């Protein structure tokens, strides 16, 4: 089990992350400068916290301010792939991979290099230097080097940020598969929300040096715990409202545009709230069709802007206040895949009925 709970002050910045992880791929997600990379440095032993505790899978306590334990990076058994890769340019692929296992007997070392070369599809490149290889190959070498000494924890700091999108997607799948095969705990830093969702077994949302929320990505995306998390995860539709009733696990929320009945055992039961719903969870209703669920919120809305993103359309749709109140109109953001967009003939007219699907509505407190 990996666990971290530390504090480190660097100038005005206060780093205080806290989370745990089993053998899974943990994505640390947040805006740049939020302390994700510093967290990895602290775990690797390259940054000494002021206080707290870091435990590495396998039982080793890497850092504990109460017992003054502080293992040096050499003794932490952590594989660390940095953003700039830092492959040793004066060494061949083989020498790079062997760097971390120099103390092993020669036979065992060459067996290990052969394994890693096969595992990461680097056959035939063993005697190349880093600058003679493509970006994707360099990535794989950096991974092989980090994995050589059989670490119990793998740290990946935005390793694919310099690569083009298709290659990034391929490497992402490879890393996820590799991690599962080796049954490793891996911490993966990214500020790319798609990458976070695609990779994470567990998503840790960072902001300003702190962990705002962590859990399975589905849960975090569906039920952000605060307005800030909803914002960071690009929930897009965050609507101010007020709880007007609560009975038998159903919260009734009143907003200027609709009244919604939300079934959420973790939702607040009184006070001011934001109603959150992602653009992909609002659907446009075909004429004469009602919503699927009885609790879906149905509204009349007008398309004011239509932005095509290739495979989807982002529609900006204005809804007037309850009773046709136009002074308080609100713009909803609705994502629609290209195919239903064409089938429904969305571009033929502006006025539609939309449904906010009940099971995707979530509430966060509004201060």
């Amino acid at each position: 089990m990996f666990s971290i709970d530390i504090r480190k002050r660097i100038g005005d910045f206060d780093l205080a992350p806290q989370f745990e992880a089993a053998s899974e791929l943990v994505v640390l997600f947040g805006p740049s400068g939020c302390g994700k990379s510093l967290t990895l440095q602290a775990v690797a032993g390259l940054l000494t916290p002021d206080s707290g505790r870091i435990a590495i899978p396998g039982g080793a306590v890497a850092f504990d301010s109460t017992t003054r334990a502080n293992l040096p990076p050499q003794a932490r058994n952590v594989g660390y792939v940095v953003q700039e890769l830092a492959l040793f340019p004066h060494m061949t692929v083989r020498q790079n991979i062997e760097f971390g296992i120099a103390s092993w007997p020669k036979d065992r070392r060459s067996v290990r290099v052969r394994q890693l070369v096969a595992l990461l599809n680097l056959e035939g490149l063993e005697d190349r230097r880093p600058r003679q290889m493509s970006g994707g190959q360099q990535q794989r070498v950096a991974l092989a080097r980090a994995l050589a000494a059989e670490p119990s924890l793998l740290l990946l700091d935005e390793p694919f940020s310099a690569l083009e999108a298709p290659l990034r997607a391929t490497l992402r799948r490879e890393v996820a598969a590799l991690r599962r095969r080796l049954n490793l705990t891996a911490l993966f830093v990214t500020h790319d929300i798609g990458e976070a969702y695609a990779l994470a077994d567990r998503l840790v949302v960072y902001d300003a040096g702190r962990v705002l929320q962590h859990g399975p990505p589905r849960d975090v995306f569906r039920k952000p715990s605060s307005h800030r998390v909803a914002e960071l995860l690009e929930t897009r539709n965050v609507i101010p409202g007020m709880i007007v009733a609560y009975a038998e696990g159903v919260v009734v929320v009143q907003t200027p545009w609709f009244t919604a009945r939300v079934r959420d055992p973790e939702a607040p039961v009184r006070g001011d709230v934001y109603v959150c719903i992602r653009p992909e969870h609002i659907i446009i209703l075909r004429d004469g069709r009602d919503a699927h669920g009885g609790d879906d919120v149905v509204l009349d809305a007008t398309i004011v802007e239509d932005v095509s993103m290739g495979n989807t359309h982002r529609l900006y749709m204005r809804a007037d206040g309850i009773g046709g109140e136009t002074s308080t109109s609100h713009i909803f953001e609705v994502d629609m895949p290209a195919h239903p967009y064409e089938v429904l003939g969305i571009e033929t007219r502006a006025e539609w009925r939309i449904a906010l699907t009940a099971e995707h509505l979530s509430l966060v407190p509004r201060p």
Partner: protein
Amino acid sequence: MSASGHADANSRATRRLGLDWVFGAPALLFVAFLAIPLWALAWRGISSGELADNVTSSLVLDSLRLSAITSTVTLAVAVMVGTPLAYLLARRSFPGKFAVDLLLDLPIVLPPTVAGVALLVALGRRGAVGARFDAAGYDIAFTTTAVVLAQLFVSAPFYIRTAKAGFESVEPVYEGVASTLGASPLRTFFRVTLPLAWPSLVAGAILCWARALSELGATLIFAGNLQGRTQTMPLAIISAFESGQSIDVPIALSLILVAAASILLLLLRVVANNAPARM
């Protein structure tokens, strides 16, 4: 559109031509100023017909041998002492770092004669430190050791400066990654940092060696001008002039130094061009 574009290109060409003449003339003049004395030196040396004899005279051979030995020893000491200092200056912060940094620049800007006087006052027979050596039976001033110390004082800073810049150019992330791969700090230094800084270290060594080879002022004051013991080639040139015999001996010495300096400069270029690409 295309016509005006053409006219544009034309007027740009004329303007460039004007600049070439205005800048080219003084540039050419200065190149000539540098080249003519060296050409004269070579021509005079060869046309005297006694270049071979002069080069093998005892004054020339003794000073050549001494210069070769002392500058090499100086370089070796500068590298051994200077490399750790350069690394610490590049990577660590410590009290007095600013002062040390300043101190290292001083010999570069100071007239070498001042260095000679300072060394004499410190290490001469009646000097602050030299008196103790004298009491123990060791003389430093006016020995071959003094030649090396004078050269070291004025030339080592060139090596340390360049080496420091070299270490600074190595991203610390390489060292961080090496340490997570289990490498001790010493192994990281020798396997990662040193190879990455290597071109700068070689460049610094060449600069240091060239400076040591041409050292004159500090040596003259602190080590004297004794043939075979402290008379390096620059000093031998002075002696040959003062003896008032022929100008051919100083010319032979000068040509050897010009050749040595040219080789060192070429080496420097080769090293700079072969620097491994950073990632």
